[in-house]
């Protein structure tokens, strides 16, 4: 059955990237969430500078610190994927090349994000 919705209705509000304002909002929400988490992360880095393996492990394994790092990884991975998506859409124009770059971007962000979260959990749950 043919849809009664016109083609125009189907693309309205989606814009050049085809995803509307959803990406824009998630970029802002993750940006706001990143601020306190990044400050906490910088504090952790300062506290850990020059420390040995055992100290680093103890700190990262601490439930509060581990939770902070997991939330930061999650939020930053979403944020950096969206940020790089915008950059790719700005500079890469061929359809095939653009799709390849966008796929690579999603893959990179997912692998980095999931690897970090796995590693943090491993340290925290085994200490």
């Amino acid at each position, binding site marked *: 059955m043919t849809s009664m919705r016109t083609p125009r209705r189907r693309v309205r509000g989606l814009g050049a990237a085809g995803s509307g304002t959803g990406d824009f909002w998630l970029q*802002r929400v993750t*940006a*706001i969430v*990143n*601020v306190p988490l*990044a*400050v906490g*992360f*910088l504090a952790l*880095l*300062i*506290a850990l*500078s*020059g*420390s040995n*393996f055992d100290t*680093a*492990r103890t700190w*990262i394994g601490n439930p509060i610190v581990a939770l902070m*790092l997991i939330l930061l990884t999650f939020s*930053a*991975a979403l944020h*950096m994927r969206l*940020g*790089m998506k915008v*950059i790719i859409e700005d500079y890469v124009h061929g359809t095939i090349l653009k799709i390849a770059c966008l796929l690579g971007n999603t893959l990179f962000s997912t692998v*980095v994000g999931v*690897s*970090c979260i*796995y*590693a*943090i959990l*491993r*340290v925290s749950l085994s200490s």
Partner: protein
Amino acid sequence: MSARFRLRPRPLSPHLLIYRLTITMAMSIVHRLTGVVLYLGSLFFAWWIVAVSAGQKSYAVFDLFAASLPGKTIIFGFVWALIHHMLGGIRHLIWDGGLWINLPEARGIAWVTLIGSVTLALTAWIAGAFIRTLIQ
């Protein structure tokens, strides 16, 4: 695309070479640049955290590199980029709220992000060095 009707290429957005560099323009570029630096730097963060989880031997390899000059440069660059991008991002969020968007204010907070990020990154570095001397 209706390429047949495109006799001339479409104009691109403002051309870098025909505008004098302004502080707001420079900080716009640096925000994108630091975004990319952090994107790539996430690999370094992943190396650190995975090395800690993998055990003493892997951590020693990371530690050796982190203590070298290239390692220290990367860490300082990452810390500065994070602080600068964070301040620049807060500036963007303020603009999204419709505030400080006029030229005098926009120029003002552009300078604040630059001076603030350098000051804070150096402060963080000195604080880290101080803690290191306490440990050793």
